[in-house]
């Protein structure tokens, strides 16, 4: 492993401390919960009931308000996972591995949602649930990447080793994502000029665009919430016996 000895700023160093992360995460968590709940609820209700229908696709276009956030998050989460993994590998920071581990399930969920909602959306618009379109295919491959990361993480019983292995795979996978995307796009356009281009964005009026912004932001907060909760749970699991934890109000208070 690369063993750099870069000087870290103080806050960065602090972040590696389980105690600091646990406490600071505890402060953030309620705000994330609130933000995620409000943004998602408003965005979805707006999108479902108040936004105008698309002149071409009709009401099926409302699927966008869940499909697009899921599709965007599926990629952001993978990237976050790889960055966290890289931080863990370079600075030997255990918290970073925990964060990466917390990303896996939620990222896979977003990818699955993007795929399924996309497929469902395809039926009324394209007349088929599935076509071998570039974007669809690369999302499917992304799902497989997540499945691989998840399986690898599960298959290794020792936590530290599992964390490092997962990090390496996530990094390699991230380097590959643009390559996959590019190759798939290129492959499809060669064989079959796709009649369903997703790329040109309709110039949307703001009452169609704003709900989307809300759900996307809400999804980011939800992602943050899940990562915080999971990482803090892992801190609890691995810090058995640390004095700060044993005297923490979460534990002694809840007793």
């Amino acid at each position: 492993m690369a063993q750099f000895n870069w000087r870290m700023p103080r806050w960065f160093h602090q972040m590696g401390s389980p105690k600091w992360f646990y406490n600071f995460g505890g402060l953030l968590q309620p705000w994330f919960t609130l933000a995620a709940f409000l943004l998602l609820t408003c965005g979805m209700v707006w999108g479902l009931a108040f936004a105008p229908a698309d002149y071409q696709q009709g009401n099926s276009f409302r699927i966008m308000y869940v499909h697009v956030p899921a599709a965007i998050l599926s990629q952001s989460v993978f990237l976050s996972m790889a960055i966290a993994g890289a931080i863990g590998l370079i600075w030997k920071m255990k918290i970073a591995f925990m964060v990466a581990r917390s990303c896996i399930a939620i990222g896979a969920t977003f990818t699955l949602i993007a795929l399924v909602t996309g497929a469902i959306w395809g039926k009324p618009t394209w007349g088929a649930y599935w076509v071998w379109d570039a974007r669809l295919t690369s999302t499917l491959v992304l799902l497989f990447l997540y499945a691989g990361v998840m399986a690898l993480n599960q298959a290794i019983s020792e936590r530290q080793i599992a964390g490092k292995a997962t990090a390496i795979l996530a990094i390699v996978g991230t380097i590959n994502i643009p390559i996959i995307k590019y190759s798939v796009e290129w492959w499809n356009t060669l064989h079959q000029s796709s009649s369903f281009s997703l790329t040109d964005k309709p110039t949307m009026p703001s009452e169609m665009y704003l709900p989307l912004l809300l759900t996307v932001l809400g999804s980011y907060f939800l992602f943050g919430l899940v990562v915080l909760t999971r990482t803090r749970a892992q801190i609890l699991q691995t810090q058995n016996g640390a004095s700060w934890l044993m005297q923490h109000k979460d534990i002694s208070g809840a007793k």
Partner: protein
Amino acid sequence: MGFMLAIIRRDLLLVARQPAEMINPLVFFVLVVALFPLGVSPEASLLSQTAAGVIWVAAMLATLLSLELLFKLDHDDGSLEQLLLAPYPSWCLVLAKVFVHWLVSGLPLILISPLIAMMLFLPSDAVPTLMLSLLLGTPTLSLLGAIGAALVTGVRGGGMLLTLLILPLYVPVIIFGASSVAAAALGMPVDGYMALLGAMFVFALMITPWAAGAALKL
């Protein structure tokens, strides 16, 4: 260099002691390609249309399956530990082992591919392209696969896991490999494809020793 040579010599000796291991990926390749017409249809037109893809997918599966044992056997009997303890960087080890793997599983595939191409009615103009694309592509497959093999080393029943880890990484290679052959069959130029396959090879050569070496040291 001496270190890498020692590993290469040892691994070739092991293969020589058990030639079944050498011939196996090849036979798997041939069998998959042979089963395909049985399952699908013996029609020449359909087969020649699909030949490029089938050959590339079969080659990939054959490589993938033989990759499982790349580090696993060494891990199980403890010789991987000894190799890692030697005073040489672990990327030397990875490169040496990948080289032998390709020599044993990739090269025979390339040599037999004209025969397979004939069985699937691939236009004979496309055969040189097929061989060239395999020559550029199979080392990439071996290299990328080594990352997965290193990651699953020591995990029970890692074979399937390896598949899962590595197949997504193989997607670009398959696409360009198969497309190049299909293009050649249609008489189109293939320089671009070859350049891409070459670029991917160089790329794999750059990241693999680092990633697989790090994974082995976990």
